[in-house]
């Protein structure tokens, strides 16, 4: 299980982001988490218009500002400076989370520490009791957004699989993940099964299964996002 993936095999972080971007339909409203998800915005095909929501009160988030043009009062959920596109709207936190919790956001892309066969997601806490826990908007997003995509490396740096039979870390939400995008594969989570939608170049099913704790199902027809 802890055999590490060979260097150079599989998709890069940017390729994971591109894979996600290509699966987002024109006209979608999308919320992006921190890490690989942040890279998704720059890979949206130019013929698609996708609107980005940041839960701290902006719909129509644009790319980062040029150096020197940062505004400390215009930031994203990761507290990094951003811009607003023409047609953007600002709103307060309760209105912003009404969008999230009321099912008005189409897709949320999040990082994860673990995803289970049933689509349970763990991405907010290692479960240690010494450090103060922090949850932010993760639980709101996974319970409210219509479709949850996870973007992550297939295994942790020591080779431990992150796609598991049952999460050992505290849950962010139960049965919430629809699709998993890793360096090794694109996986579809449905009806308590994880199906392989696409394998990264140089990765075969047996290799993927060796790096995955949960049982995988082959040749799954993907559902549309």
């Amino acid at each position: 299980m802890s055999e590490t993936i060979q260097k150079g095999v599989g998709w890069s972080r940017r390729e994971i982001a591109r894979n996600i971007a290509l699966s987002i339909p024109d006209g979608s409203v999308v919320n992006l988490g921190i890490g690989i998800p942040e890279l998704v915005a720059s890979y949206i095909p130019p013929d698609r218009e996708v609107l980005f929501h940041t839960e701290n009160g902006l719909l129509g988030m644009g790319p980062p500002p040029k150096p020197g043009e940062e505004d400390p009062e215009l930031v994203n959920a990761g507290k990094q400076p951003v811009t607003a596109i023409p047609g953007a709207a600002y709103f307060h936190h309760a209105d912003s989370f009404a969008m999230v919790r009321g099912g008005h956001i189409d897709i949320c892309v999040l990082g994860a520490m673990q995803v289970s066969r049933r689509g349970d997601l763990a991405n907010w806490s290692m479960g240690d009791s010494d450090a103060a826990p922090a949850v932010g908007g993760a639980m709101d997003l996974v319970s409210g957004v219509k479709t949850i995509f996870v973007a992550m490396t297939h295994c942790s740096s020591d080779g431990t699989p992150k796609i598991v039979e049952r999460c050992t870390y505290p849950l962010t939400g139960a049965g919430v993940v629809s699709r998993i995008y890793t360096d090794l594969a694109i996986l579809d989570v449905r009806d308590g099964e994880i199906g392989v939608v696409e394998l990264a170049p140089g990765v075969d099913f047996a290799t993927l299964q060796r790096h995955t704790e949960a049982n995988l199902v082959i040749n799954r027809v993907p559902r549309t996002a």
Partner: protein
Amino acid sequence: MIDKRFDLAAAVADISDGATVLVGGFGAAGSPIELLHALIDQGAKNLTVVSNNTGSGNVGLAALIGRGRVAKVICSFPRTANSTVFQDKYRAREIELELVPQGTLAERLRAGGAGIPAFYTATAAGTRLAEGKETRRFGDREFVLEYGLRADFALIKCRQADRLGNLVYNKTARNFAPVMAMAAKTTIVQTASYVEAGGIDPETVITPGVFVHRIVTVPNPLQESALVAAGASYP
């Protein structure tokens, strides 16, 4: 490229028999007359309508009710000057009424739009309108459990919309429209003015475009109050 523009007939074409439809407006202010008339033309029946009132004269919502298209009304005040349409149907037992206090109605719509299935309110506790409802004490006071309200469609009116569906309203014509936009699967808006993205200051947007699905431009909307004063009826 996002483009939510529809013409009047197309905007309401898929409202099916039996649908639940939210209708904006407080009395005549904010009533989406042109959308309502398009819905009359379209022919859907057996509708459940959620609106603060039941229309006036024989136009707009009153005309929809008068033509027998509405099976049930959820509202706070089904009486309006210049209209006996609803009262006549009600006395004849041809229409069902769910009477909801006005603030509870607004809050139920917001809750529906915000993913809240139920909440507690002091409004109506100890009154006839709380009969049969679950109650619960918090502190020394009794509260009534009320349920979030969602709908298939919302028909609302605004002053200006941009390409992405961001809306601003006019004065007290705003009333229920923003919470109805939140609570409907498909929100259909008639706007007096349509502008490109960027045409509305992002600080002043009242309804962000995520809540809006179809935009119909009606440059000089009919005013219900003027129609009623003129004795108009539709069609």
